[in-house]
Each structure stands twice: as C-alpha cells, then as structure tokens.
C-alpha cells in the first residue's frame, strides 16, 4: 500500500483512491461538495483544495483539488496551510455570493452540508452587497420540494439522478452563472429514486416535501434504526419522530444492502404511521350486526380471551408483521392451526424460494453491484424490488468501466473521464420480462414473452451453459456465453414458480461449470421469507376448514383470498379477532379489533430476501392503547410469558431451529455502553422540559423501553454505538448525513463493527 505524507507524517492508504477519499478516511476534515463516495469525483466545486509538495525540500508547494488527485507512493501534502485555507474560504465565499442565507427558514438547516463546510472553512462574514441571482422554482411533485436559489452548482443531483439512477427528467440547463438544475417544465419527478436527491444535495435545493409539513430540525428528531417493510429487500432506514408523528424516513447505511440510497417507496411510503386510517383505540361490537365501538384495552382483552378460551382457534399470520408477532400467534393457536397469511401464489413462491435459498447461494445488493453478469427472469424489479434494480444498473454501468480502464488507465473514481471512455457501452445485464420495464435501457439484451416462454428461455440458457455450442445467434446462447465468461454471475427472479425453477436451473448449470453464480429471489413484503421459514399451512386450506374463532394478525384477507372465498369464510366465523394498525376490509368485519403498533413504533425482527434477519427498533413509544402485536397475543394467553422483546425472541429461537441465530441480529436490551443506554434523541434536543408544560409543569418521566438498549431520552452514551443501534449520523462539525464518513471502517465500506443483521440461511451447495 502506498504511503503518503500529510504534514510530514506518514500514512498508509489504499492505492485505488483519490486523495480526498484517503484523507477523509484517515479522519482528516477536508471540505468538499461535489465528491460523493458512490458517485466519484468530477472536480466541479473546487472546495477540497490541498497543497501538494514536489519532495521534502519543496516548501512552496502547489494547490491541487484533492478529489482529482490520485494517491501515489511518497506523495507529500498539507491540509492546514494558510494558502489553502484562504483558498477554500474564498471558494465558499464565492459560492455564498448567490446563496440566499435563508438558513432560519430552510428545511435543510441543521443537517446542511453547506452549513458544515462553511463553518469548517471559517468563512463567516459576507462582503457581497449586491443583488443575488434568483431562479424560479419548480413543482417537482408530492415528494420533493425545489428551492433553486440555494443551489451551489455541485452537479451532484444530476450525477445521481441522471447518471447513477438513470432518470431522464432531471438535468442541468443554462450556462455560466445561470446554471439551473431541474426538469424542462414543472411536474412530478419520474424516477423511483428521486427521494435520494434530498440526501445527495449538499444544501436545501431538494428537500423532503412530506417532512416539510412538520418543520422539525434534525436535532429535535427522536430516531431509531429500523428496516423498511415495503418489499423483501430489507433496506435499512431511520425513522424520525417529533410530537408523536413520524416526520421523515432517512437512509441508514448498510454496506451489503442499500448503501447510500433508498427507493421512494421506502422513503415516502410510511405515511400510514400518521394516517387517518390508523386504529388508535381497541374496538369491539356487542353482537353481530351491531357497529364497532371504541372500548378500553381491558374490555377488548377480556372479550378476546373469552372468545379464545376452550375453543378451536385458528391464527392467520402476516408477511408484514414481525417474526415475533407471527411466532406469538403460532404459540397461541398451536402450529396445526397456524396459517400463513399469504395468497396461494405467494405461498408457493415463498416456500419455493426458501427451498432454493437452502440449496443455492444468494447475493446481497452489494454483491449484485460488483458481479460481472446478471440475468433477470420474469421480474419487473422497479415495482417488486426497486433497490435491487438500482444495484443491477450499477452492474451494467460498472462492468464496461472495469474492461475499459484496463485498456486506458483512468481511475475508476474519475467519473467524467470514465463516462467519456465507456460512452454507451452496456454491461452483461440481460432481462426477460412479460413487458417493457425501466431496466431495459441498461440491459445488453431484452426479451419479452409470457411467463412460460421466459421459463423456457431460462431453461434454454441453462442448457446452453451446460453445452456451449458454436452458434451464437440465439439469445439463449448469447446470455449463456456472457454468464459463463463472468467471474461472478447473478440470476434474479421471483414470483412465478416455473420461472424461479428455470432461474435455479441456470445457477445450477453455472455452478456445475465451476462458475461462481448466485440466485436472488425477490419477496413481495418485508417478512415473506421469514414467514415461510416459520412454517404454517396455506390460506386456501382455511377456507375449507373454517373455525369458530379466528385471529387475523396484521392482514387483510380480502387482499389474499378471492372475494367470494373471503366473504364466505368470514361469514362462517363466529368470532373474528383482528390485530392491525389501520382500517382494512377485514377489520371492518371483526368482532374485536386490537390496535397494533406499526413498524416505526415496534421492536421486531424481519427476514429479507437473502435470509438476513434484521432488527427494527421503535422510534417512538406508541399511544397508550396501541401495543406491539406480540404483546397483545401474549396477553391473550393464560399468563404472561414474555414481558420483554428479548423473552419472545429467545423463545422463538429455541422453538424454531431456523431462527436460532435471530437474537444475534442486534444487541439485546441488556446491552449498555459504559453503563448507559443509547439515546434516541440528540444532545441538542430542544424543549424537553417545556413540551408538556401545558399539561403539567413537572417534567414527566420518559417512557421506559424494556425491549431495546435504546432510551427515549437525550441522556445516555455519547460514544459511537454498535452498527445495529446507530440512531443518527452525527460527528463533531458534521451535522449532515455526510457524518456517515465517521461511522465507516473505510469510506464507502462496511460500518465500524461490521454491518448489522445475521444471515439465517446457509446454502448446502459449496462452489
């Protein structure tokens, strides 16, 4: 590894990085705007200047942009030199000439990279006395608020939206000091990843429009690490709360899964937590035909307990509930009476996925990004697993780069140069889907056909991998050749059984040929795979069996069963107990409704598409009558078995061998850092003593949290927590999300202490 000298001190750094990346990784603070670990360098902002010396005798030096300077052995530089300090302060002052200085009313204020960098450079007095350039803002749809005057022309938005995510409708217009970033006309942004502009933009040009309604500063938010349950990818998120409302959802870095970016469904799809449809009090009806009325928790529980006692009770689980909730239901009703709340197609696909994952290796999103060839069979990934589609796009962009830079050595981080070099070349990404998808433009070859034709193509590819033939004109042979030539290949599928089997056949064929191949099967919901691992009967059987008393856990039967079957089944049921957080057609027919906590208010474990168990923690305590589903279900039993989350998690690990490692997904509630819990609130959390003063001038005790090592408080450990418990990204001088640099082992690499979560499924086959 090369050694560089910073102020005559030697440091060992990785050879393939640029100087900025290396210095930030060593813990030095250099201000920057346009560079992003996932987007590379373009040298647009001129902010990361450092002084480089020719040799140890050179005292004059030369100012260079550290983001555009490759690391080389023996490089001598200084970061803290009066000349470069002045240079950087001048650049900031220059950028600030047109910046409106509206921090007090800006939504970015408090987690603004521009604020951090301005403080870091020491520019603190504005000399510019003249009019500022102004722009007209656009309406960019319901998710993104546009405030173009704040722009500092770093080009990050276009580089992410256009280059990284493949969006077509946001670009840069104009010239010299009238550079404009936006759409050609007002209108909703079309990309599925538009929400990332909020985090990518170093200042407040693109801000989170739904979060804007709550006017909450980052330091006032109470947050907890969690997992997105919108699809089976299991991206890590941070839920942020203020005044009992979920304010915003932020990306939580996970090297193996979502990295720096989320899809819009994950970022903006958690509105139901604050929704009008939320059930906040227990509901019960006196008799069939009477209407549902609000009741007390005790009354609802005693009704439910009476209904359950001494009768045959069946339980219907849910792929959107945590493992623990499903397990608690299974324990309550018995394994024979536990039905997975999946439709027929979902049930078959989930069970087949589980069998295939136990047989064949799978790949994380990071492994997909760094693979050399991929084949998508039958899935429109931008609807079923958008983040995976973004990973595949990176594969398609990265692979020709890797080939081109062998011939013409340009560092991979030099984004503009690499794209000049690669031009329109596409990587070995192949897609076979029933209709056109947005991923098609990144694919080297596309095939449209019915699902059985796609399965047929898959089998043909498998056959062609087994027996390479000379003829190359058929698509199957072309794909097979690319997959065989790849060092690592990924086959993505899901949904349909025949297609999944065909995908598995391709992986098996590649592995027989001695290639490293992995199978990725998408799952429709956050815990579909976990539910299949827990095991239970198919929902179609329940219609045939029927029962006097049915408990439905966070599920809408009308979404899983044919209309007639669901209606007939519910009419035969004497007592229907439903646990859910929002009103559905099933809760409308229930006799007792118990209000369940949403994912943002509960502690639980979810299993993602690769069989990785991940823990979500409650960002805020639910309202008094709202409880986690496993708590309600435990209360329905004769005596309380599981007072805390760890009890139910441990019981599950003992009862179900597949979940033996589930408690290791995150530290238990007993975990302490220097004797303290980890605070959910920032040290700057404001109004603590006054927030409830209109009710009582005495400050109330914060809610207890027996389920996790996090505290609903600003007091606690100030140390950097273990990766599964990171509740916010903050470091001294770094208030924006870019503080993440301080939490990683190396920048853009795994988190310090290893990435959270634990893989529950190990394939039998070894390469």
């Amino acid at each position, binding site marked *: 590894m090369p050694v560089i000298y910073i102020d005559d001190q030697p440091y060992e750094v990785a050879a393939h990085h640029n100087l900025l990346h290396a210095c930030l990784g060593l813990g030095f603070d250099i201000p920057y705007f346009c560079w992003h670990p996932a987007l590379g360098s373009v040298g647009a902002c001129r902010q990361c200047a450092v002084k480089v010396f020719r040799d140890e005798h050179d005292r004059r030096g030369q100012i260079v942009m550290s983001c555009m300077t490759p690391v080389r052995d023996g490089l001598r530089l200084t970061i803290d030199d009066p000349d470069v300090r002045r240079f950087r302060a001048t650049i900031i002052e220059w950028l600030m000439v047109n910046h409106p200085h509206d921090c007090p009313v800006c939504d970015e204020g*408090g987690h603004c990279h521009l604020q951090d960098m301005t403080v870091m450079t020491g520019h603190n007095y504005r000399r510019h006395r003249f009019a500022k350039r102004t722009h007209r803002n656009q309406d960019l749809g319901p998710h993104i608020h546009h405030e173009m005057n704040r722009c500092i022309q770093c080009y990050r938005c276009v580089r992410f939206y256009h280059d990284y995510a493949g969006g077509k409708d946001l670009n840069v217009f104009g010239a010299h000091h009238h550079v404009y970033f936006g759409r050609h006309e007002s209108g909703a942004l079309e990309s599925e990843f538009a929400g990332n502009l909020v985090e990518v933009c170093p200042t407040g040009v693109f801000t989170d429009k739904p979060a804007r309604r709550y006017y909450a500063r980052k330091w006032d938010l109470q947050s907890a690490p969690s997992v997105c349950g919108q699809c089976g990818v299991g991206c890590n998120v941070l839920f942020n709360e203020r005044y009992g409302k979920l304010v915003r959802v932020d990306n939580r870095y996970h090297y193996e899964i979502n990295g720096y970016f989320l899809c819009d469904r994950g970022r903006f799809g958690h509105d139901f937590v604050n929704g009008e449809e939320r059930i906040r009090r227990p509901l019960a009806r006196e008799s069939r035909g009477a209407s549902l009325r609000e009741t007390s928790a005790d009354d609802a529980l005693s009704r439910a307990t009476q209904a359950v006692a001494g009768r045959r009770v069946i339980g219907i689980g849910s792929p959107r509930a945590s493992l623990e909730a499903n397990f608690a239901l299974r324990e309550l009703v018995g394994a024979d009476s536990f039905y997975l709340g999946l439709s027929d197609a979902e049930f078959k696909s989930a069970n087949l996925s589980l069998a295939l994952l136990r047989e064949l290796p799978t790949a994380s999103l990071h492994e997909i990004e760094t693979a050399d060839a991929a084949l998508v069979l039958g899935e429109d990934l931008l609807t079923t697993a958008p983040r995976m589609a973004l990973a595949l796009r990176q594969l398609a962009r990265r692979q020709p780069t890797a080939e081109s830079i062998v011939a013409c050595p340009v560092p991979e981080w030099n984004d503009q140069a690499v794209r000049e070099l690669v031009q329109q070349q596409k990587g070995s990404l192949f897609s076979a889907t029933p209709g056109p998808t947005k991923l098609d433009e990144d694919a080297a070859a596309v095939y449209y056909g019915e699902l059985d034709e796609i399965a047929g193509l898959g089998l043909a590819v498998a056959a062609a991998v087994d027996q390479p033939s000379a003829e190359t004109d058929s698509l199957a042979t072309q794909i097979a050749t690319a997959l065989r030539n790849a060092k690592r290949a990924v086959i993505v599928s899901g949904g349909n059984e025949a297609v999944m089997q065909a995908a598995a056949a391709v992986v098996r064929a590649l592995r027989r040929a001695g290639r490293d191949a992995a199978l990725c099967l998408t799952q429709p919901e956050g815990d579909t795979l976990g539910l299949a691992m827990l095991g239970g009967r198919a929902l179609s059987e329940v219609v045939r069996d029927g029962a006097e008393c049915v408990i439905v856990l966070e599920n809408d039967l009308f979404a899983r069963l044919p209309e007639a079957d669901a209606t007939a089944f519910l009419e035969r049921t004497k007592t229907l107990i439903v646990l859910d957080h929002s009103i559905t057609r099933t809760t409308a027919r229930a006799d007792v409704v118990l209000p369940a906590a949403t994912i943002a208010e509960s502690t639980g474990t979810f299993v993602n598409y690769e069989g990785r168990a991940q823990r979500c923690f409650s960002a805020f305590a639910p309202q008094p009558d709202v409880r986690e589903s496993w708590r309600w279900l435990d209360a329905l039993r004769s005596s309380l078995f599981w007072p805390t989350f760890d009890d139910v998690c441990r019981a599950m690990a003992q009862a179900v061998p597949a979940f033996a490692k589930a408690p290791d997904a995150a530290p238990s509630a007993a975990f302490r850092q220097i004797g303290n819990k980890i605070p959910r609130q920032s040290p700057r959390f404001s109004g603590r003593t006054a927030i409830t003063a209109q009710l009582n001038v005495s400050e109330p005790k914060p809610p207890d949290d027996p389920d996790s090592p996090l505290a609903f408080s600003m007091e606690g450990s100030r140390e950097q927590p273990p990766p599964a418990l990171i509740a916010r990204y903050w470091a001294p001088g770094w208030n924006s999300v870019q503080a993440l640099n301080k939490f990683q082992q190396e920048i853009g690499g795994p988190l310090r202490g290893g990435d959270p979560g634990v893989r529950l499924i190990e394939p039998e086959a070894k390469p």
Partner: protein
Amino acid sequence: MGKLDKFLLTDLFKGLMLTLKYAFKKPITYQYPEVRRPIEPRYRGRHRLTLHDDGSVRCVACGLCAAICPSQCITIEPMEGPGGKRMPQVYEIEIGRCVFCGFCAEVCPFDAVVLTQEFEMATTDKSTLLFDQQTLREKPRG
C-alpha cells in the same frame, strides 16, 4: 492592638460612630414595591417577542433559541403563514425553568426574541409560569 485601646473600647466606639454617621445620611434601601429600584440597561428579565411594524411577529420559528436553551424551556411549533412565511404556531417559554442566561436572544438571527427588564413574575400557581406567544408579545410592565 494596644492594651490601652482594648481597655478604652476604641473599636467599639469607632463602629458606633460609623452607625451614627449613616443615621443622618439618605437611606439606600428602596421601599419596594412602593419605590422601584432603577434597573441596569443590560439586565436580563422576562422575554419578549418583537414585532414588525404591521404587528406580525419577527420570529420565523427556526428553532435556534430552543436548541441553545440550556434549561430546555422553549417550545416552538412552526407553521406557514400567509405567502408561505414561516412563523411560530406555538411559542412557549416555561419561565419557571428559565435561567435568564440570554442565549436565546444572543442566538436569534432576527432579534425576534429579546430579554426585557421585567422581573416581577412571582406567582402562587406554577402553571401560570408557562408563557405563551400572546403573553410574550406583550410589552413589559414597569
């Protein structure tokens, strides 16, 4: 001290003389509340929310005062007023907890919150120590 001084109780008489001198001087005690003591110009008392000429609050609810407040006694809930102008929907100071450090006024980018010289806020009911936006807009007494 000499033995003579001790015998003649010189110090005692010195002290009595001083007392006698002040007995004929103008008293420095203020007969509060009938007589009010002059207050130093930089005295920090009850807060006030300053207003624009049109009577609207200058505060844009940026939250800096609430963040800097060491006793965490300020609560702000922002809202958007006419023309998208940011203003506080709720601006409350729990004055019973305030330590009158003046950081809030110091940090305010718009001089929207200032500390007045009013200090008479004694009450027998703690719940009246929560000053809302209306109270804080009022001109200080005295």
